[in-house]
């Protein structure tokens, strides 16, 4: 639509009357309202994290404080090992993301492209996994973890997080693989590539945007996971950010230390915002762009 011919302009002129109200008014307004809806709670937290306690408790609310403070942030690092929490979350999330992609991509490829007996049953089994509420898996998992002596070990979180995210990874990657044109793989077969090498050297490189997309979803879900992290890790210096945040008093209705909680919110979220900002162009790139043009 970059070239504009005279006909296009005529047609646009005709269309404009119908589309213009939607395009010029309803669309921008609803887009903007949605932005407010999405960001207001977060910005409020951000603002709160810099307010002094008196302003936080004030009624009516203080929208534009006259004083700002870093005390709430200082409190997080001085009274609690908050840097450790972030590090723990990072280790657990990165490891389970890599594992989920590493195990999920070949499985997805097998299900998408390779000849497989009982493919339907396998797919159904994987779908089945997504149906189990994690709570239901708890007791059995506790036993597995006790048996493998993984209590207070990062693996106690990494393994379940990988498992929980595997089905989505497999399903999404599978649909990406199915959309790939087959020519490349056919050519690779002719060139004598075996399946493993083909996946590694030809298929995966052109699905990097898909891997990144899926990986980010896994990473976020691992970073945010709460219940397993709350139960399987009891050592203070091994806790993850959500658990630490909740234990600042979020679940109790009395004496809520809003300032430090808000600061924890902000700190725990910054790495993820950076990640999304950094990768979003990649997510958005055409998924198979340029792969079969030659």
């Amino acid at each position, binding site marked *: *639509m970059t070239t504009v011919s005279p006909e296009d302009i005529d*047609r646009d002129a005709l*269309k404009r009357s119908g*589309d213009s109200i939607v395009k010029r008014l309803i669309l921008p307004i609803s*887009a903007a309202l*949605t*932005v407010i809806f*999405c960001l207001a*709670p977060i910005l*409020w*937290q951000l603002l709160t994290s810099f307010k002094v306690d008196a302003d936080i408790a004030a*009624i*009516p*609310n203080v929208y534009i404080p006259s004083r700002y403070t870093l005390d709430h942030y200082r409190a997080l690092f001085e009274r609690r090992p908050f840097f450790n929490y972030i590090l723990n979350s990072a280790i657990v999330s990165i490891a389970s993301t890599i*594992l989920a992609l590493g*195990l*999920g991509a*070949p*499985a997805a*490829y*097998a299900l998408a492209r*390779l000849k497989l007996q009982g493919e339907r049953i*396998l797919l159904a*089994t994987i779908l089945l*996994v997504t149906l*189990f*509420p*994690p709570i*239901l*898996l708890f*007791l*059995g998992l506790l036993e597995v973890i006790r048996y493998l002596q993984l209590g207070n070990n990062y693996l106690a979180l990494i*393994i*379940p997080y*990988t*498992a*929980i995210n595997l*089905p*989505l990874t*497999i399903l*999404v990657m599978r*649909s990406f693989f199915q959309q790939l044109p087959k020519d490349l793989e056919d050519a690779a077969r002719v060139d004598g590539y*075996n399946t493993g090498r083909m996946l590694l050297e030809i298929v995966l490189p052109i699905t990097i945007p898909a891997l990144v*997309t899926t990986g980010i979803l896994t990473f976020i879900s691992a*970073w*945010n996971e*709460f219940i397993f992290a709350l139960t399987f890790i009891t050592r203070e210096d091994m806790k993850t950010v*959500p658990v630490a*945040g*909740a234990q600042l008093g979020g*679940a109790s209705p009395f004496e809520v230390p809003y300032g430090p909680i808000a600061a924890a*919110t902000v700190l*725990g979220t910054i790495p993820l*915002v950076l990640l*999304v*900002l950094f990768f979003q162009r990649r997510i*958005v*790139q*055409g998924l*198979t762009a340029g792969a079969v043009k030659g």
Partner: protein
Amino acid sequence: MDKQLPKSWHIDQRQLTPYLFLLPALLILGLTVFYPAIQAFYLSFTRYDLIDSPQWIGVANFRRLWADPIFWQTLRNTILYLVCVVPILVIAPLGLAILVNQKLRGIRWFRVAYYTPVIISMVVAGIAWKWLYADNGLLNQFLKFSGLSTEGIPWLTSPDWSIFSVMVVTIWKGLGYYMVIYLAGLQSIPEDLYEAAAIDGSDGFRKHWDITIPLMHPYLFLVAVISAISATKVFEEIYIMTQGGPLNSSKTIVYYVYEQAFQSLEISYACTIGLVMFMIILALSVLRLGVQRWEQRA
């Protein structure tokens, strides 16, 4: 099998590959999902409180469940949750995805804005919203200030409101997530299709009706399934914001499972509730798979 071994052994380096590709994933799923699930299935026929070893009691837990009014209420709440949340999470994110897929200057900031709630942990989101919903929170202050309501709304403290207030948080956190899934799908629609459609007179919003929606059909389906499953498993928002209250009004089945297992230590009864819930989800998905297959045939 044994007799054919020499012959098939030879072919099957290559036929074996797909299974080798699947094996690690299946192993980890077996260890962390299927084994615990079977364990839970077994426990639901026992009496077990973490202290003594499980005692087989047959279907007593199921009989108790049938007569348990709170179970029926949590079931109703869960269904209400599904019915309200899923349609919004299927439709709204597609609109957002179409919006942010446009090549406009600064559109990436919209994309980031919509995606931000996804990356916030639910714990933190729950805390943030609980605060907005408070009696003197931002929302009620706004209502009072603008004259829309003199009393404010008891968002989380009234049985009439609480579950809907929690739903808003689920939707708030879900919009961007499903938008990205749709975005991935939109990116895979070749540009020339739209150009061809424009020549045929399909432009503006019609082009989305003519091209986007039909081609996005698999993604709509995917989002419907994922959002439905996650809506039946809603837990953290409730844990943080309402603890299922007031008067069980926002208690979903999963929360009830949690409550029975970890507060009442009724482990086996919790497993029973969880099992029934799983059966319901399973029935829903089978039904949906059937519909999908029927659609494909039609």
